[in-house]
């Protein structure tokens, strides 16, 4: 089955991003496809390559990047939400790209299921 995922909250502040990641991992392990994760609202902060968590904490950003690398998951950051919050091409972590809200709508149309994680 083809999944689309929507993440509405930033990393470390809210569990939404962790829940979304663990859901994606389980879906991929079960043989499903996660074809896009769309980051909206404060969720755009998941894409910042300037993130530096303490060594004993998980690195939420590189974890997403690794998912893009290993499974070809399309990580899309909403351009309007990103610019509002200072996320730009120059501070984007690997695997992420900035695009419009149309990518979220397209995920809703193309995916068999769209699952939202937020506050």
């Amino acid at each position, binding site marked *: 089955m083809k999944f689309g995922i929507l993440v*509405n909250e930033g990393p470390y502040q809210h*569990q939404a991003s962790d*829940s979304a990641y663990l859901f994606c991992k389980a879906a991929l392990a079960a043989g499903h496809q996660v074809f896009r994760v769309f980051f909206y609202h404060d969720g755009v902060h998941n894409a910042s390559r300037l993130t530096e968590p303490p060594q004993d904490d998980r690195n939420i950003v590189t974890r997403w990047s690794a998912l893009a690398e290993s499974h070809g998951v399309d990580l899309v950051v909403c351009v309007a939400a990103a610019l509002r919050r200072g996320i730009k091409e120059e501070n984007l972590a690997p695997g992420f790209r900035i695009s419009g809200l149309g990518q979220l709508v397209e995920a809703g149309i193309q995916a*068999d*299921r769209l*699952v939202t994680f*937020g506050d």
Partner: protein
Amino acid sequence: MLHIVNKSPFTHSALDTCVQVGQQGGDLLLIEDAVYAAVAGTAVERLVRHALQRFRVFALSPDLEARGVAGQLIEGITLVDYTGFVELVTHNKTCQSWL
């Protein structure tokens, strides 16, 4: 359809509204802070028992364990892990996150 609730029932109306709006025969999954609703002997147990008459009710076990409340669940609630979460999403035609 699958209803996903992630808010504590003690501070938010999400679970209450979800239970009133949701149609008979749906599935309800408690994740994140909503897992506190699955614990027996609280002020919201009545609401959850009402939910159990209308839906299949599930709770995400990693979230229960993280919060130290995995051992005292209301009877009738089924525990799932993330694999079970994925199965619930595939089993239902749509899902609504009650944020």
